[in-house]
């Protein structure tokens, strides 16, 4: 026991302007299941990309020893040759090809350049049996569920004689039954000598399968916990211990002072349930209920896959999900938000977490982006008043401090912070009563973050009801009056700011509702 299979030493990876990883150490023993834990954006996936050669060996600092030999991978192919296989969160299968074709894609059984289909399907069937999947190997991938596709990925890894299997959030897209099956399979493979690294923030899963846990926070490896506090470990694997490691960040960022003046209830969502748009067996939001009052900033905290964005987007004109059920009340009266124009007309605005794909028209200029959601306000009988448009846009450019030479500047050329200000301006111009801001400071530098916080405080002071979705707990603690926590689609907690701390929130965020 306790023979190291992988040692990563002093890994530092820098992206322009950001240190994604800083002096990270990771030790994995042969035959164990090693979990990597951390908040969204802590650097878990980056570390795995470093390990698997997605980032070539000369683009980061540090040393990787696999089976006591130094590694210098320049591509995924190099790492796969050594038996390190990574299964990404977004599955990399070709939907129209069969299971067997996918398993041997790029690795075809083709003596003398001619694919032997009989043998391919036969071998595929053997691999499927190993992962406990009862499907015909000639079935096209798109005809099997995501859970089964995940198993095909593992079968594919096994076909490559895998020694170290890396799974990036393998259960994030699975329902409970499929998740359990997958975890059992990981334990089963462990019995056959396959070492696994599993990235997850579902603490109950980690407790179920992991022999060791390494916690990463803000690009640094914080500590490694081992089962039974064993050799080389710094402590027992307990939920409290993992949470402490994940959130132990200082609350030293600055937040604007504000004295909340909270009024009547503006928006209430009751029994909101949303199905996944493709996979009907997955309920993404379960019976969620929440409310927000005038002048109040309410936070939605949750880890990846908790259903925060899905909740917000389904309320905002059913922009996400299928079979949405539940009620939305505004000032106590039920309203219909089943279309986006309807939601906007009822004074709801949703600023997306994905500015580039859903928030802005990047090839269009600032003023047109700002005016777009509330164009009727600038138009008479369909005719747009361009002078007023420019005036309005210039007004926001000044009040929001959008750093651009003119409002005719193309938004695609602005920095993330300024783009976000354009998005906020757009929704402020639609004059909503409720603003839902999804990750409003994602990808924004520290200075601009403070400006965004000030804007949010200003909106609340004007009497708007604000809902902020964020993965950064200090941020929620810094700006919110009340915080809801979501976990696996359930609202698991509602915490007034006076009682909220990173530990309590993380506790609720990792809680599983039965």
């Amino acid at each position, binding site marked *: 026991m306790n023979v190291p299979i992988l040692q990563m030493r002093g890994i530092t990876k820098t992206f322009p302007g950001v240190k994604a990883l800083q002096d990270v150490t990771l030790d994995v023993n042969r035959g164990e299941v090693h979990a990597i834990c951390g908040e969204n954006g802590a650097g878990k996936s980056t570390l795995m990309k470093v390990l698997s050669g997605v980032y070539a060996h000369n683009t980061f600092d540090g040393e990787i020893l696999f089976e006591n030999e130094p590694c210098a991978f320049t591509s995924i192919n190099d790492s796969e040759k050594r038996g390190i296989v990574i299964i990404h969160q977004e599955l990399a299968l070709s939907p129209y090809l069969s299971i067997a074709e996918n398993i041997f894609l790029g690795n075809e059984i083709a003596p003398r350049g001619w694919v032997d289909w009989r043998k391919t399907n036969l071998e595929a069937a053997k691999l499927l049996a190993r992962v406990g999947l009862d499907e015909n190997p000639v079935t096209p991938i798109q005809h099997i569920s995501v859970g089964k596709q995940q198993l095909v990925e593992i079968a594919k890894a096994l076909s490559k004689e895998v020694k170290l299997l890396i799974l990036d959030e393998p259960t994030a897209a699975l329902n409970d039954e499929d998740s359990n099956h997958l975890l059992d399979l990981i334990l089963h493979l462990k019995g056959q000598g396959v070492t696994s690294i599993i990235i997850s923030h579902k603490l109950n899963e980690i407790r179920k399968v992991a022999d060791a846990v390494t916690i990463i926070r803000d690009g640094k490896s914080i500590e490694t916990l081992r089962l039974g506090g064993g050799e080389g470990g710094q402590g027992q694997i307990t939920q409290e211990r993992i949470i402490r490691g994940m959130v132990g960040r200082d609350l030293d960022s600055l937040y604007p002072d504000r004295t909340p003046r909270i009024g009547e209830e503006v928006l209430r969502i009751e029994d909101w349930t949303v199905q996944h748009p493709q996979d009907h067996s997955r309920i993404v939001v379960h019976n969620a209920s929440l409310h927000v009052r005038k002048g109040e900033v309410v936070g939605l905290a949750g880890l990846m896959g908790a259903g925060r964005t899905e909740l917000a987007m389904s309320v905002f004109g059913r922009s996400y999900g299928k079979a949405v059920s539940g009620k939305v009340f505004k000032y106590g009266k039920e309203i219909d938000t089943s279309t986006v124009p309807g939601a906007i007309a009822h004074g709801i605005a949703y600023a*997306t977490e994905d500015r580039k*794909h859903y928030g802005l028209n*990047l*090839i269009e200029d600032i003023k*047109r982006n700002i005016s*777009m959601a509330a164009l009727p306000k600038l138009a008479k009988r369909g005719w747009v008043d*361009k002078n007023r448009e*420019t005036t309005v846009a210039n007004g926001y450019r000044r009040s929001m401090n959008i750093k651009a030479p003119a409002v005719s500047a193309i938004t695609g*050329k602005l920095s993330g912070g300024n783009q976000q200000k354009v998005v906020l301006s757009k929704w402020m111009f639609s004059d909503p009563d409720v603003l839902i801001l999804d990750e409003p400071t994602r990808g924004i530098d520290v200075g601009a973050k403070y400006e965004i916080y000030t804007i949010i405080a200003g909106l609340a002071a004007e009497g708007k009801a604000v809902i902020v979705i964020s993965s950064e707990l200090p941020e929620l603690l810094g700006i919110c009056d009340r915080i809801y926590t979501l976990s696996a689609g359930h609202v698991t907690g509602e915490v007034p700011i006076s009682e909220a701390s990173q530990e309590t929130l993380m506790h609720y965020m990792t809680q599983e509702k039965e």
Partner: protein
Amino acid sequence: MSLSSTLARRAAGKTAAPRRQLRGNARYAPTLATLGLFLAMFAVGAGMYPSFLSGQVFLNLFIDNTFLIVLAVGMTFVILTGGIDLSVGAVVALSMMVAATLLQQGWNPAAVIILVLLIGSTLGLAMGLIIHYFDIQPFIVTLAGMFLARGLCYVISLDSIPVTEGFFTGMAQAQIPLPGELFISPGVVLALAIVAAAFFVLHHTRFGRTVYAIGGNENSAMLMGLPVRTTKVLVYVLSGLCSAIAGILFSFYSLSGYSLAAQGMELDAIAAVVIGGTLLTGGTGYVLGSVVGVLVLGIVQTFIAYDGTLSSWWTKIVIGALLLAFILLQRLFTRKTG
């Protein structure tokens, strides 16, 4: 209002940061490049053939291409949303066939024109609805529309049908005199009126804004509550209507209906729009640019006519080269923005 005066107005309004401003207007670059190219070709032509410089040569570019200008206008709307309409050439031919046949049977020309416009718009509407409801690529749907319209032409007649009706022949011969012994045809006035209308719709109305927003980022347009679906259907109706108008104009020009007419004209229209600076993926471009694109195609033809020794197929080769050059220019431009 011309593009240059719009530009001048914009520039005059913002003198604060002139250098940055210039960069901000990079999206005019392809259109301005086309305009520059057109002027350069005109200058070269004038240098080689003294008679080239006459105003009438310039006006003939419009007179000979009225239908293509109108087609390019409709196509600009479609391409701005990120779509494509391959049916326009066939719809032009169908419009000509319908008009010629009905006129031969003694129909009132006004009734004929109205019916033709209705047919064109209805075809556009049908294609738009199919694209919308079944979520099928515009390429396939309008390709089917093209076969349908062309097939209908053959069903009506395989032969060329002459148009002898008074109003149409009158329009064919009519000349509107301009100062300096120059003239244009009534078709030019109509085509330019359509261009002007399209310009104002695109730049001054909510509908126009929505067209640009869809091409720029359809997801974000959806999340802003814009009428994405209606607008996407409407651009095909517009394109169908423009094709019908172009068919009428082509009838004025050729005074006949023939099922093989306007073969490949959809590709000329697409070429004109792209050369005029509209991004094939949608979101940026100007209807005035498309007009300049048509003029560039026209001047290439004029050149070859003047030269006399070159086969007219050289036109296609030059157009192909230009198209490639402009696509490359756009690639360069979008890479900077992205």
